[in-house]
Structures are given as structure tokens and as C-alpha cells.
């Protein structure tokens, strides 16, 4: 057990002992190699389930609106729970977004910031193993990950090569503004970003369209990207509306494209680049290529970075007199 994990458990035990929280959202060991998964801890006795390692990819903030909405389904009235949540830099920024949009009760949450050193992307590992999931994992040795394939072959993968894209490009590894902080050494913030976006922008219109078609053609409309996103808390998503019915139900390409355009555009000024959608996608669609474009534009056009301040107005709720209007058609 690593040092951070011990500190975390002690802290959470204290929170339960002091009756500060009713439930803690954290990570536990998953049932597959390289997977830690969200878990809900309800008492000090269960705290030992918690883990902190390089596989905690899920954005836990997605559960916050639900945990408060859940109450509404219950028959007897109970007060909203007090929730502790373990947060990497990205999770904490999502929490800020949810607070800003009044989706969670501020007084009822305690954010525990983790010193995140970047997570491993199981999809990258799978790709490195020719498409098959690893059969077991022996852990990290000297900056490399040791795994065994289902045919029994042992392989070493460089940590950097299998680190999630979002983590490599992470600008805020530390959960700044968290209520409690677990000390440790987070990964360094990355300033060199959007290289892939710039590359894509430089391509011809036709090339870009072909890439968009190629990515979206993979979609099976399972809505995992939507469900995994902390920002997608709408009670009725536009794709499920019947009047008007924005898009048809079939997997005809234009339907699927409009779903993705609608969803991604709805994240403008809100997306924290956590890649929860990317990791959730079973078909490995490169959603980051599209979500990040909006993040970049919002930064460049409106000088706004989501998830850093609860008070600052979101960019699309406001305006400046001198906002760029170079896109306006002049006859």
C-alpha cells in the first residue's frame, strides 16, 4: 500500500468518525487488471476498500448530481446526504462546474484533493497488446508497466506510452481549491497543448471531414460518452426529446453526427478535458479531437478556462462589447 493511500484512508476514517460525511465516493480495486473503479463507502468500516493508484481514470464528479437527484426517487423524505469525494485535478474542476451550475449542494460536499501523477489508459495498453486486454498486471517497475497477455506472454510497456492523453496534457493535476488536500507530488502541469488540434486545423476541409466521418462511423449510440460526463446531467437529453424530435433513432450517419455535435457543443466553456467520454467509449472514438477544439477556442476567444472558479461567469452566459466578430459576413 502506498503512502498516499494510507493518508487517504486515515483522512476518510476521520471524516466518518467526526460524522462529517454520510458517503464517500472513491476508488476500489476493479475486477480486471489495470482497472480501479468508482465505489461508494458508507462507513469507517468500509474505508479499507479504498485504493489510490495509476488506474483511477473515472471522473467521480459524474455521481454528484445523481446522488442528490436520487433522493427524489425515494418514497420517504430524507435530508440530502453529505458527500465526500476523492478528486484528481480534473474531478475537482468538474465539481466547480457543477457548483457553478447549481447541480450540487455546496454545504453538503467535501472535496478531497489528490496529488495526481497521471493515469494509465487501458485502451493504450490494449492497443499495445494487439487489441486484447491484459490477463494480469504485475505492477510498475522502473517507469514501466509489466503485464501478461492471455497467451501467457510477458510484456513491458513504458509508463509514458500508456499514460492517458488527458493526463499527458493535463494543465491542473492538483485539485486546487479542494476542501482537504492529500499531500504528495503531483505530476507537472503541461503547458504545451493543442498540438493535435493545430495539426488537425491545418488539414484541408475535405481531410477533416473524412476524419470526422471515420470517427463517428464507429459510434454505436450507446451514449456512454454522455453518461460518463459530469456535465451531462440534463434530465432529458436533446436526443431523447420527442417534441421536437431532433434526430432519428437509427444509426444513419447524420443522426449520429448531430448527436455528437450537439453533445460536444453543449460542453463549450464547460469541458474540463478529463476525457471521461473518451475512456467510456467502447468503440475508441477519438472524441478528444473534437472536445478539445472547443476548449481551445473558448480559451483563445474569451480567455476562459472552465472549472477554476465558482464565481466567474461561464463564457456563454455573458459577453464583452469587443468580442471578436471577424466571422460575421459583410456583404
Amino acid at each position, binding site marked *: 500500500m502506498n503512502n498516499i493511500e494510507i493518508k487517504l484512508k486515515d483522512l476518510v476514517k476521520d471524516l466518518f468518525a467526526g460524522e462529517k460525511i454520510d458517503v464517500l465516493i472513491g476508488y476500489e480495486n476493479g475486477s480486471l487488471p489495470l482497472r480501479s473503479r468508482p465505489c461508494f463507502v458508507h462507513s469507517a468500516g468500509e474505508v479499507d476498500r479504498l485504493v489510490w493508484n495509476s488506474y483511477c481514470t473515472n471522473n467521480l464528479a459524474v455521481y454528484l448530481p445523481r446522488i442528490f437527484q436520487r433522493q427524489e426517487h425515494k418514497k420517504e423524505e430524507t435530508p440530502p446526504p453529505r458527500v465526500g469525494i476523492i478528486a484528481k485535478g480534473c474531478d475537482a474542476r468538474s465539481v466547480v462546474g457543477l457548483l457553478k451550475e447549481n447541480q450540487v449542494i455546496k454545504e453538503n460536499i467535501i472535496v478531497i484533493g489528490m496529488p495526481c501523477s497521471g493515469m494509465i489508459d487501458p485502451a493504450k495498453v490494449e492497443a499495445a497488446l494487439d487489441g486484447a486486454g491484459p490477463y494480469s498486471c504485475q505492477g510498475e517497475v522502473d517507469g514501466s508497466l509489466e503485464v501478461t497477455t492471455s497467451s501467457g506472454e510477458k510484456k513491458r510497456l513504458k509508463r509514458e506510452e500508456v499514460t492517458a492523453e488527458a493526463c499527458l496534457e493535463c494543465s491542473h493535476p492538483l485539485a486546487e481549491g479542494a476542501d482537504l488536500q492529500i499531500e504528495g507530488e503531483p505530476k507537472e502541469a503541461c503547458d504545451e497543448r493543442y498540438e493535435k488540434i493545430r495539426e488537425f486545423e491545418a488539414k484541408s476541409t475535405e481531410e477533416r471531414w473524412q476524419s470526422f466521418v471515420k470517427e463517428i462511423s464507429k459510434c454505436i449510440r450507446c451514449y456512454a460518452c454522455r453518461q460518463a460526463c459530469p456535465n451531462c446531467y440534463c434530465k432529458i437529453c436533446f436526443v431523447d426529446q420527442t417534441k421536437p424530435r431532433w434526430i432519428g433513432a437509427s444509426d444513419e450517419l447524420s443522426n449520429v453526427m448531430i448527436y455528437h455535435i450537439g453533445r460536444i457543443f453543449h460542453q463549450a466553456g464547460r469541458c474540463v478535458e478529463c476525457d471521461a467520454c473518451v475512456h467510456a467509449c467502447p468503440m475508441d472514438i477519438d472524441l478528444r479531437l473534437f472536445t478539445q477544439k472547443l476548449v481551445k477556442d473558448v480559451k483563445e476567444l474569451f480567455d476562459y478556462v472552465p472549472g477554476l472558479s465558482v464565481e466567474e461567469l461561464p463564457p*456563454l452566459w455573458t459577453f464583452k462589447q469587443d468580442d471578436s466578430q471577424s466571422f460575421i459576413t459583410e456583404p
Partner: protein
Amino acid sequence: MNKTVDNWEPKIVAFLCNWCSYAGADLAGVSRLQYPPNLRVIRVPCSGRINPLYIVKALQQGVDGVLVSGCHPGDCHYISGNLVARRKFALLKNFLAYLGIEPERVQFSWVSASEGSRFAALIEKVVDEVKELGPAKKLVKKGL
């Protein structure tokens, strides 16, 4: 691109705000200014009323171009509707172009109630540009 298609005329949906651009279009008509007849006008209360999905949905239904026009900045009937919309439009314009949809397919402009001739010139320009592109194929729902 498919530049010369026999007898093809583009279909363009124009979302015009009630207070300025729609009145501007009206003025162009009343003043008997000539402009191409390719528009299908949808009057909206304010350019701030435009949901990006209106634009995308119009493209899916097979229009060759979309034009959104509202009051000039500072002239909005609702004070700031067009200014808030301007941010949304800037992002949308960039985003659709980024995905590979020709930028000329989706255009935004400001036309006031007194600018009949600006309206006519704007339509002339938009129709010309869309004609140059040829019929829309991207994002269009597959034929039945």
C-alpha cells in the same frame, strides 16, 4: 467541388430576427430591391433565440446553406441578446468548419431595419458563395 450542376438552385434557410433583419428584408422587398429568390425565411424573436441545433438540423434536412442575421451589436431589442449569441455563433462557426463543413454553408450577419440594400447585397453574396460550393452533401440525411 461540384461547381456546375444544371439548373440547380441552392436552398438557403435564413433565420432573421424579428426586430431588425426581418424588417430589413421587408424593406428590401418594399423598396423593390432585386435579390436572389433562394431564401426560406424563418422569423425568430432575436438572434439570441437561435439554438445551434436549428442550424445543424436544417443542414441535415438538406438545405444548402444557413444564414442567421440579427440586429447590429448595441441595437438588440432585448439589449444584449445578439451579444450573447455572438459568442455562441463564433464557436459554432469555427466548430462546424473544423469538422469539415464548408464555412460558407453557415453564415452569420447583422442587418438593421433600415438596411434594405445591405440585406439584398448580403443575400446576393451568400447565394453566390453557396452556389460556388454546389449542393450540400455533408451532414445531409441519406436519401430514402
